[in-house]
């Protein structure tokens, strides 16, 4: 029931864009996105609650396709500070459970 993220890892140059996908085999109630830097706590980025919802702040945004049971995180004009591991987290309707995705390692180089 753990959502699967793709790609597993990506390397970008500063200023490039990236998309991280999160897919679930179960119907989703909500999708969270977190970023975790090495040795640090995960930091909450945003939550999407409704199918079709799109959110964003600064140059990071996300969408939630309820029918496809997936969410995507968009990073535009990437900065060095965007480096880290990104996790989606999904709350499913049945089972009252929250699962973190498999994770995507993103490295931004100068």
């Amino acid at each position: 029931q753990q959502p699967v993220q793709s790609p597993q890892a990506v390397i970008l140059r500063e200023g490039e864009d990236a998309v991280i996908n999160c897919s679930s085999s179960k119907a989703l109630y909500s999708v969270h996105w977190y970023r975790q830097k090495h040795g640090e706590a995960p930091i909450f980025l945003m939550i999407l609650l409704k199918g079709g919802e799109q959110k964003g702040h600064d140059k990071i945004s996300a969408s939630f396709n309820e029918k496809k049971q997936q969410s995507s995180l968009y990073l535009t004009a990437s900065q060095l500070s965007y480096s880290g591991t990104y996790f989606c987290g999904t709350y499913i309707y049945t089972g009252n459970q929250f699962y973190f995705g498999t994770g995507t390692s993103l490295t931004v180089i100068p």
Partner: protein
Amino acid sequence: DTEVTQTPKHLVMGMTNKKSLKCEQHMGHRAMYWYKQKAKKPPELMFVYSYEKLSINESVPSRFSPECPNSSLLNLHLHALQPEDSALYLCASSPNVPDRELHGYTFGSGTRLTVV
């Protein structure tokens, strides 16, 4: 105060020791969580407390014993751990109980546990 505080930051313990991890939040959050994270893996849920009551136990071995003395404090008591229990233990909190959560989780910086 918008953070979750965990102590200690690092802990080395023998397999016969008893130790406790502590987590504190003063944001008035109603749900608190313990997660275990191995290197390069996502956090794995261990326990969930909602309104100070244990609501979810993810089949965690009894050598891990959670306790929620009050709405701000969460402990994890450790006894007779195995080397494979070495990991980063993360505490988190959220404003609402999981099935009504409209906000994200706030994580503490974790306790790096090594069992020798």
